[in-house]
């Protein structure tokens, strides 16, 4: 555990060693603000809640989270530090988990910095703060799921751009799988059980359920399983590809 903490600390601090972290946070907050106010009609709706704010999280994460995760492993492989890291007395599993947690903690800071939205709705009206807390929890576990996909695919290529594109593609599959577009495509031939499974795999559907204030264990378990699955594949890929 202690080793994981040391690996975590190094990885987490490395985000702030360059301006990348600050640029990312500013970009994330700016974009989220613009979407909430202009596309989500935050004020015009006249309702004291953060629904228009959370509505854009999925789409923003789809593009921005792979940008955080793309360097996790591809950079280690490209610069050769992976050989240093994995010949220290640490296991690949420890390294994968530590790096993932560091990325998650960094993303959590970006999400936490959206607190002015919360203050704003509380200033303007009397929102249901329970729903908002649920929304933030849902948002955080969804970030974790996107990051696990990104971390996994970052170990698949030495090239960060390829890692980014792969992560966006796989994330997209998980994001849109429950949308009418996809469901209509498969409903003509697939049995209903399959359609239900595909619909259930959707990040959007699971996140919507949580952010409406229904903190159902099923949705949380769903996101946690996605993380476990992709981190498991991540460990396998790291061991398989580390020396290539």
């Amino acid at each position, binding site marked *: 555990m202690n*080793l994981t903490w*040391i*690996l975590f*600390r*190094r990885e987490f*601090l*490395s985000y702030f*060693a*360059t301006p990348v972290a600050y640029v990312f946070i500013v970009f994330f907050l700016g974009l989220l603000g613009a979407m909430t106010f202009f596309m989500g009609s935050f004020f015009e709706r006249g309702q004291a809640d953060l629904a228009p704010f959370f509505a854009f999280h999925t789409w923003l994460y789809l593009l921005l989270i792979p940008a955080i995760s793309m360097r996790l492993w591809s950079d280690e492989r490209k*610069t*050769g*530090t992976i*050989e*240093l890291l*994995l*010949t*220290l*007395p*640490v*296991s690949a599993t420890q390294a994968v988990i530590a790096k993932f947690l560091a990325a998650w903690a960094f993303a959590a800071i970006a999400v936490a910095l959206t607190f002015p939205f919360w203050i704003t709705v509380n200033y303007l009206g009397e929102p249901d703060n329970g729903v908002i807390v649920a929304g933030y929890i849902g948002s955080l576990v969804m970030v974790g799921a996107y990051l696990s996909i990104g971390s996994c695919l970052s170990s698949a290529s030495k090239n960060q751009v390829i890692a980014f594109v792969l992560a966006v593609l796989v994330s997209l599959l998980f994001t849109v799988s429950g949308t009418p577009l996809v469901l209509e495509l498969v409903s003509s031939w697939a049995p209903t059980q399959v359609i239900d499974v595909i619909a259930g795999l959707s990040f959007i559907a699971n996140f919507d359920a949580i952010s409406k204030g229904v903190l159902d264990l099923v949705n949380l378990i769903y996101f946690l399983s996605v993380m476990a699955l992709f981190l498991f594949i991540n460990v396998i890929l790291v061991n398989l590809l*580390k*020396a290539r």
Partner: protein
Amino acid sequence: MAAMIEVNGLCKRFGTIQAVDNVSFQVARGEVLGFLGPNGAGKSTTMKIIMGFLEPDSGTTRLEGFYIQNQPIAARRNVGYMPEGAPSYHEMTPHGFLGFIAGIRGFSGSEAKDRIAMAATQTQLGSVLYQPIDTLSRGFKRRVGLAQALLHDPDILILDEPTDGLDPNQKHEVRSLIQEMAADKAIIISTHILEEVDAVCTRAMIISRGRIVANGTPDELESRSKRHMGVSVTATRETCQQLVDDLNALDGVADVELDSRGLFVKPSGGSDIIDLIRILVRQRGLSVADIRIERGRLEDVFRDVTIPSATGDGL
């Protein structure tokens, strides 16, 4: 003394290339083993397998009794390894980086501080300790990699080209450092600088196309040289030409070659011919600048065993 590093029958194939071919050897405490070989001979691959970074197709490695394949964490605990190219996290400072390594090695507080200071002193990093590694010269980057491997004062050191990219003074410093530590450690260094072997290694192994083609002390290897125990005579061109025929007629002389500095007399059957040559020179009343016995050159041995066409009937 029991071997600290035991390598047994390692084989590794990449596609059609046999990168490591049945490599076995042992290194005991107090030994410095020099891995020699042309680029791409399999030195780094062998080191990666020893450290458990690469899986061999067959064969085993034991570090202080622990099998690297079965107990990788325990096997690596008492080993310092500097991989090829001395990788480190470039956005960190040497101080931060060594702090990270100290943490991984289980040091904290004042002990970590002492270890970092010690490693930085040994590798002379003091002046750049708080600059990002990214901004450092190649020599400093290499020394950061070296400091990382030394930090926990391990019993086993495996260093892939520790002096590559250093200037002559720095090379000398690193060699002295390795020599100082050699007594109570088992050390493997890889290099393609032959003088390094003479300077620091107690034993040298030449690897070519994945195979060990020569293994012995530097002296033993030098004795395999064609020039070993030969006599070189430094003199002017005319003097040499006057001498050639007489030398060829001497008992125990196999061959005489003229070269740029004089001539080289190759003995037959390891006989001691230097006195005969001295007498001959005196009798003829010639003056020569120098007559001496050659130790043999590692460079010749290296070329002989690593260039296929020059191998002849082998060593």
